[in-house]
């Protein structure tokens, strides 16, 4: 484990005792749910990491342990050298949290009042507060919304308001739990551009969970995939192709309808439709020898190569692992 990690997890576990009513009986059964089952990783200061996984994989539970909301059942956890669940209030001043599914703002108060309250809670000096608020208002286009009660904001407006609230005290780490969930294309683009610039100019460490892989592609050089509480992959987004055994597809148009192409080394025919045939080969292999083999043995008219879809790769990881 690296010692210089800004966020460090060592064999972190979270086990929930779940009681549920047994079928046909009045008594309830207890059983264990291992929401997070031994995760180890380290995130350096200034990194931007995507944290993905299917629903119920343990993403939110991890974030909640990193903020100190939940106490880990086992393992060791440090954020900026602080044990989150033991020194929750101390850590709170150094982190910013955005929950996509719920707001941290006060439902009945206008944004401006919510922010004023935040300023006092986090003891942000007036000048710094003003500068941060002005910057966020400008970049996130909140100008006309400061006097509007939070409950009247649209989802996209509220999300931008929440992100602002999380940044007024200059946090060193920003956790975003599904920050683009339910947003339209324009709002998503605004949020992404903002996060990119935040990371680039202030060096804020960002950890975000999402189901939208475009978020990851546009923001994060590093991605962690979690499933059933275990870390399945930790590395560059591109590297997922190798781990996920993804395949590229060679689409060939022949002169006429023929039986499926056979005997091509390093590729197999997966589909035919009339004169068009689809050949799959490993993403890491070169297409050239396959193309020449096909051209040698068959009347080739046209061809194209399709890159693997990262969504497919991840879908295959979720279902296969």
């Amino acid at each position, binding site marked *: 484990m690296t010692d210089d990690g800004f966020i460090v997890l060592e064999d972190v576990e979270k086990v929930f005792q779940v009681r549920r009513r047994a079928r046909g009986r009045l008594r309830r059964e207890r059983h264990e749910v291992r929401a997070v089952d031994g995760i180890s990783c380290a995130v350096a200061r*200034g990194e931007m990491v995507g944290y993905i996984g299917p629903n119920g994989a343990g993403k*939110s539970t991890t974030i909640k342990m990193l*903020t100190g909301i939940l106490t880990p059942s086992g393992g060791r956890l440090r954020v900026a050298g602080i044990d989150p669940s033991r020194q929750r*209030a101390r850590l709170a001043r150094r982190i910013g949290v955005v929950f996509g599914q*719920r707001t941290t703002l006060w439902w*009945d108060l206008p944004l401006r009042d919510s922010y004023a309250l935040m300023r006092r809670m986090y003891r*942000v000096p007036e000048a710094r507060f003003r500068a941060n608020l002005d910057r966020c208002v400008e*970049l996130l286009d909140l100008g006309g919304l400061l006097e509007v009660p939070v409950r009247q904001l649209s989802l996209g407006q509220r999300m931008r308001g929440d992100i602002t609230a999380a940044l007024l005290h200059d946090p060193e780490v920003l956790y975003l739990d599904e920050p683009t969930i339910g947003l339209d294309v324009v709002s998503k683009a*605004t949020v992404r551009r903002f996060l990119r610039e935040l990371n680039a100019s*202030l060096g804020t460490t960002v950890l975000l969970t999402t189901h939208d892989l475009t978020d990851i592609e546009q923001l994060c050089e590093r991605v962690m995939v979690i499933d059933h509480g275990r870390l399945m992959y930790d590395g560059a987004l591109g590297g997922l192709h190798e781990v996920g055994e993804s395949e590229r597809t060679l689409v060939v148009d022949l002169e006429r309808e023929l039986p499926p192409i056979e005997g091509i080394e390093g590729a197999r025919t997966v589909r035919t439709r009339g004169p068009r045939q689809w050949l799959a080969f490993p993403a890491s292999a070169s297409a050239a020898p396959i193309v020449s083999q096909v051209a040698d043995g068959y009347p080739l008219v046209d061809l194209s190569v399709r890159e693997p879809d990262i969504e497919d790769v991840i879908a295959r990881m979720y279902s296969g692992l």
Partner: protein
Amino acid sequence: MAEVPLGGEPRALSAPAVDVPEPAAEGPWARLCWGVRAYGFIAAMWIRSTMVYRGSFLMMVAGSLTLTALDFAAIVIMFSHVGALGGFALPEVALLYGTCTASFGLADLLMGSFDKLGTRVRDGTMDTVLVRPVPALAQVAADRFALRRLGRVLQSAAVLGWALANVDVDWSGGSVLLLVVTLLSGAAIFCSLFVLGGAFQFVAQDAAEVQNSFTYGGVTLLEYPPTIFAKELVRGVTFVVPLAFVNWLPVLRILGEDDPLGLPGWVDFGGPVVAAACCALAGLAWRAGLRAYRSTGS
């Protein structure tokens, strides 16, 4: 939207950007002060926000005043038919009523938001409380601070004033002090009951009604002289849920009466001790509750 650089020069992030002493690192006393201050400014924010609708606020206070006044009216009507209740005349009952509802009203004003905690725990909004650098207790207590609960305090103050003017007591410095201490420790006992109930809701999330039966139910009990209730009930209330210390025992002392259980005289002055014990217990329960908090699935 134009591309605007974020705050220009990158800042050194090796130290927290906002350089203010850490409240958590300064020990329990500083933490308490910070909690109280935070309670103050959160409550002030809610008061300002309700004052935007001043008319509506005044109607709410008036409504609360009227409702609680009817409460006492029931006792007055009862006394128009019977001359005394358990050996107590109307001004004496009014003194019991006044001390108890004043204590409770004060606690309700300060801590009444606690019965919303169950909802917060169930829908997961407690998460947002826990990521802020302010003691969760202060945040939950001050959330949606409702100044309209002042209605009950005003009404009980009026009843108390009338009772003090009419009871037949030789007031000494000691008994005035006992009365003030009784009011304050009563409020503290009710506050800790609110917190205890809140802590319980972390475990059993629909327990708001159980809590209400102790707080609101306790108030109704204390409005009447203890002698009209069965001894077992009085004993339970004294020792199990220490509501008797809120006013029964000290007020009986002020009135120069004996308590129905025949307890030794010094017990009448136990209010502050019991209040401190209740607060300590509530604090421990609250911490345990926070640790047991499991959040929601998303």
